[in-house]
């Protein structure tokens, strides 16, 4: 029973409720850091780290958190993990820290993490919340990596900065536009299009008033 439930949570987090194509959440950083695969991998690791541990912490503390200050507590927990990651990165890999610029700090306002804390960790036991957070982060990181691989391959003709057959030779005319901002929009749009064509939204689109 427990194993079945865990499997269900994992599948939902990776595909059924994937934060990027289903809910179109947290795409600010999905677009900003995906011009190089290496940057994206580090950013993805940061998001996985933060979502998993903050879901765990929110879930552990859920019985002692008064409802009124719940949001504030969640923000503080997320902020704590983001600071931890940011400081570690700055100490051990200063170049990467400079490349990512403010986007590591912006994980705090990444709706995915807050969304998982609110929607899942608040009403579920710590173990399951940790798994949910871990795989939501992983689902997000996978989409980020897909975008990054397409952009770096077409735009620079490399992968992780290494030479690739065909794309790194003069035969391939580099699409510089792919590593510039418009390339990010186009790539993500096409990925969302593919994902939504394979599995259309179950419920008819709700018209949001605002």
């Amino acid at each position, binding site marked *: 029973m427990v194993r079945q439930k865990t499997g269900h949570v994992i599948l939902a987090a990776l595909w059924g409720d994937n934060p990027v194509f289903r809910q*179109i*959440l*947290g*795409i*600010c*950083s999905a*677009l*900003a850091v995906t011009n190089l695969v290496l940057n994206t991998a580090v950013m993805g690791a940061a998001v996985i780290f933060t979502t998993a541990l903050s879901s765990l912490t929110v879930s552990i503390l859920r019985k002692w958190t008064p409802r009124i200050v719940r949001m504030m507590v969640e*923000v*503080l927990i997320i*902020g*704590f993990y*983001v*600071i931890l990651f*940011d*400081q570690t990165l700055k100490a051990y890999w200063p170049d990467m820290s400079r490349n990512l*610029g*403010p986007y590591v*700090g*912006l994980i*705090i*306002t*990444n*709706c995915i993490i*807050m969304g998982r804390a609110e929607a899942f960790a608040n009403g579920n036991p710590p173990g399951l919340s940790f798994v949910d957070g871990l795989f939501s982060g992983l689902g997000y990181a996978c989409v980020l990596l897909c975008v990054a691989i397409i952009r770096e391959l077409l735009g620079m003709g490399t992968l992780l900065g290494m030479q690739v057959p065909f794309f790194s030779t003069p035969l391939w005319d580099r699409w510089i*536009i792919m590593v*510039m*901002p*418009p*390339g*990010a*929009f*186009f790539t*993500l*749009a096409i990925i*969302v*299009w*593919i*994902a*939504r*064509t394979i599995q*259309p939204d179950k419920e008819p*689109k709700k018209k*949001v008033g*605002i």
Partner: protein
Amino acid sequence: MNIGSQMLHALIILFAAIFTDNILLARFLGMCSFLSVSRQVKTAVGLGLAVVMVMTFTIALDWLAYRYILQPYAIEYFRFILFIIIIAAFVQFIEMVIERYSPILHQNLGIFLPLITVNCAILGASLFMVIRQYNLIEAISFGFGSGAGWMMAIVAMAGIRERLNNAKIPRGLQGPGITLIIAGIMALAFIGFTGVLSGR
């Protein structure tokens, strides 16, 4: 630096933030509300105005807090949490003031204010301000320019989307998909401004 050249520099930062380094189209900040609240021009204008106002004031407050609280105690790493708290507190405060003194404004702007706390463009602008080491005047003109640039982008997008209501769009591309493609085309247009100004 004398006053004149400083004003000129601030002006350059202002226009760079609106055109060459648009916070939405070049830095991808504030995408969530950009995608979800760009169906009608009227609401887009309301949200845009709220963003301009909140961003201009919070960037000044964040600058003061960074310079006079975080730096003297060498606890700069605490800035993420402090900035978020300042933004949330400011939004709450401004909501109370507007509700008390201008019911009409509150009716038009009120529903957008809570949305703004989670708009990453606001926090992002403050973080850029720290990284680029702006002084107070530069920070304020950067905040105002970023807000104005964001507003311009969302209003333009809402105008285009109103027209798109009657268009036939492939099923999987409806909603966010087509919006992203339009944003990409807008970003292409804004690349045309590259090299005209640099606010760094």
